[in-house]
């Protein structure tokens, strides 16, 4: 609540009152640094250090050529990745070392700086793009810092490339229409998170909490229900942050790239990854897969490249073996689609492919949910009553009955139905008075209504999980 009713309200007011672009940028930079410092002053220092490093190396890369240019890029990327690895993977690495050697006895508890995975990747993309000559290096450090730290998207994406907003850092226009679009996007995202995702989380946790022993006795129907709720929650939660980022960006004149495109209506795993966390998959495509040779060096090499990309994708999502398994799970399906099914998949009706994909996605989130492999295996077995657990019980039945409308609405929110209906209404509004008034009323009222709904949900909801904090 403090973010929406204090921070965001003050920043948007201050940004509006700023007369020129420099003032607007300074306003955004200060507010972004306050946002970071809010989490921890130490975190801000890491952000500053990474940005200084990239600013310095990008300018040197721009003036260099040949091997020196490549060496500078490698050095800069190595520094950034080293910082990321220290904060994100030290604990995981030491745990595995201890598993095999018994040492070290104690593993340091390293707190992951807010948004480090996102801004590190943004900065890597910046120096890589400078190296390729795709963008001109930013000579003013504070502007690069503004790019790296923009509070709109630095916590949960999308991963914005410098080239996406380089011009808008210099000049951008805030129009009534853009503000209006931004307001809709922001409030839709806020409501998706506060009302739907958080409520789905309660259903997800109803049967997914506890250790392996506890999970073993959960009824299969309850586990399926929690799995469904988690599948809805993770999309609504993650895409909500992107919606809010895009919305806030529009209100300030920025156009960030879309990060989601209704992934649950995808017709294949390949299609799913064109729609899910688009900025991450395109990052790995452009900065890992293609530089490794992509599909240009034969099928064997392509398979290896895919494997590397999906191992890294899994690791990026968290420092735990289940995320690596999650990445490999997708590698298997993607490799099967590319090398085995090929064009045959296209011959199957799209509707059938969409339905067939849903179980694949369902189980990917089961893998994603449980870091403990024993618990994961217990849940997988429990879904098919292989733990000696009941098929259903009253708790599962009542939990479903008490939440079926929520789940239905959440499922609809995962599809483009609402967007399509709004588009149709807008089309009809141009030639129909009744439709015009309905459209006008809905257009005017819905952001305020969604804001109030979200305030209600946030006020009474001490349960506000933030799934993506570990990234």
């Amino acid at each position, binding site marked *: 609540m403090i973010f929406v009713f*204090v921070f965001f309200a003050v920043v948007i007011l201050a940004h509006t009152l700023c007369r020129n672009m420099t003032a607007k940028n300074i306003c955004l930079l200060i507010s972004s640094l306050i946002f970071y410092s809010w989490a921890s002053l130490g975190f801000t220092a890491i952000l500053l250090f990474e940005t200084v490093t990239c600013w310095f190396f990008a300018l040197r890369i721009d003036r260099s050529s040949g091997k020196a240019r490549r060496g500078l890029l490698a050095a800069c990327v190595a520094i950034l990745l080293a910082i990321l690895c220290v904060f994100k993977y030290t604990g995981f690495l030491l745990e595995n070392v201890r598993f095999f050697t018994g040492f070290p006895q104690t593993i340091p508890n390293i707190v992951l700086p807010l948004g480090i995975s996102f801004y590190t990747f943004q900065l890597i993309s910046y120096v890589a793009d400078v190296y390729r000559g795709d963008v001109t290096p930013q000579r003013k450090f504070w502007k690069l810092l503004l790019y790296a730290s923009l509070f709109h998207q630095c916590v949960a994406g999308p991963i914005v490339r410098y080239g996406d907003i380089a011009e808008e850092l210099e000049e951008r226009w805030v129009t009534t*229409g853009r503000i209006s679009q931004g*307001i809709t996007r922001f409030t839709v995202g806020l409501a998706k998170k506060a009302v739907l995702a958080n*409520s789905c989380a309660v259903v997800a946790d109803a*049967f997914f909490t506890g250790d392996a022993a506890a999970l073993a006795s959960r009824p299969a129907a309850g586990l399926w229900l929690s799995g469904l709720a988690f599948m809805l929650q993770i999309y609504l939660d993650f895409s909500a942050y992107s919606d809010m980022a895009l919305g806030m960006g529009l209100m300030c004149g920025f156009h960030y790239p879309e990060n989601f495109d209704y992934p649950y209506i995808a017709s294949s795993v390949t299609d799913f990854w064109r729609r899910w966390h688009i900025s991450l998959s395109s990052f790995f495509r452009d900065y890992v897969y293609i530089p490794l040779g992509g599909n240009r060096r034969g099928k064997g090499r392509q398979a290896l490249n895919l494997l590397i990309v999906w191992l890294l994708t899994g690791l990026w999502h968290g420092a735990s073996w289940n995320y690596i398994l999650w990445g490999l799970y997708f590698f298997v399906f993607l490799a099967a689609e590319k090398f085995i099914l090929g064009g045959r998949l296209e011959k199957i009706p799209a509707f059938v492919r969409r339905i067939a994909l849903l179980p694949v996605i369902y189980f990917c989130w089961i893998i994603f949910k449980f870091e403990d492999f024993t618990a994961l295996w217990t849940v997988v077995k429990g879904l098919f009553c292989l733990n000696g657990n009941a098929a259903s019980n009253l708790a599962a039945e009542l939990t479903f*009955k*008490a939440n079926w409308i929520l789940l239905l609405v959440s499922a609809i929110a995962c599809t483009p139905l609402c967007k399509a209906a709004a588009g149709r209404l807008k089309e009809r509004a141009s030639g129909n008075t009744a439709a015009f008034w309905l459209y006008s009323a809905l257009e*005017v009222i819905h952001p305020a209504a969604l804001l109030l709904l979200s305030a209600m949900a946030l*006020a*009474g909801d001490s349960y506000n999980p933030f799934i993506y904090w570990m990234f």
Partner: protein
Amino acid sequence: METKQKKIYRIKNIVFFAVLGVLAVIGTMWFLRPHVSEIEKRELTPFPDPTLTGVLDGSFAKDLGQWYSDTYPLREQLISGAHLIQSLYGNRSEQIIIKDNPADEIPDVPGGDDPQGGAAPASAEPSEKPSEAPSAEPTAAPPTSTPVPTPDSTPEPTLPDGTISTPGEVMGTIYVAGDSAYSLYYFSEAGATRYANFINRAHQALGDDVQIYSISIPLSSGVMLDQSLMDDVGASDQRAAIEYMNSLMEPGVHGLNIYDTMKQHNSQYIYFRTDHHWTALGAYYAYVELCREKGVTPHTLDQFEQKNFEGFLGTFYSETRSDAMAANPDTVTAYVPMGTNSMTFVGHDGAEYSWNIISDVESSGSGSKYYCFSGSDQPYSYVHNPQITDGSACVVIKDSFGNAFVPFMVDHYEYTYWIDFRYYGGTLPDLVREKGIGDVIFCLNMYNTSSEGAVSLLEDLVPYIEPVT
């Protein structure tokens, strides 16, 4: 259309920023910020102390955010609105709110129902044994009229109307059916065993001269609902759980199983529908069982002055905000002890207060009626009954369920002490020794007697002494 569209956008932007602005301005009205939540029955997050460490590591900012949303001026109204929205999520007239892990299997008790040969099968019938207890005289005494709390030099208590005194209690998983809800019980072998071991430790520490009674109060579901329904939601058999705990207790400890007694009376108003506690009538049947175990004659209900407080909407209502419950609130009935209604408690602030055992909560909020009993959840309280002069004394170690039970003890002892194990800072052996206490009565609901967390707090009452080898 384009001009119209622009106009619509402009109005939309104004409306949005107006609503955002109003909500932001309301948030700045610090003087309107509540400190307690009537709905949730808890103190709200206090404003954090800004420390350099807190500012540097982000904990201050986190706490500030928590304070902001927790004490937002319109919070109660917003929460009501949120519950209204949640009522649209599905059919919630019957539901389960899951908060517990699944239950452990209850191990078999060797020897069946009465492994110790101690406690006889539970029965509501008063003992046929003649009364040997100090109750004989007080029963003849006329009921004491309700005195006004003694006006003395002690400061005013912080909860004169019984509003919010303690953190919210754990209710665990609840089953909601229409206008009633029930706490479900999930047996934990580790917790139950630890509780029994703790009772044994207390017995060893206090010696055989002190009688120890353990009353595990069944949660409402096991008594009021059919066991087949309990089985269907994976809830445990509370009778078997009590039997198991009692079977682990040493000979000499009086482990009471009041389950059958409660079950026998489940057509009566022995548990609230909108709250997780038992009623005073439920507590009375436990008291009758205790008297039977002690071999004394219990008083009959008609000997007590009765007070009724209508319009009680308890913790289940707070959790569910059920319209059905709101339309049919509970009534709190309290029985005023005959010997005296005056008590003293030491509050959470360490100060001593004079109070009433049954206090008047007529004007209190709808969620606060249960606070009429025994000064609510204070760390340490006591009563001196002037009608009894034999020096007898007992101590009740209790949670909030015990509040409704304590008033029935008053007419059997010259001194009745009660401590809330969650807040009492002293030790039980010291208290027993200092006050010359003969009976130690553990009166705790089954959630607490099966929870390792709760038992770990109980264990602080009887410090472990390393045996001399």
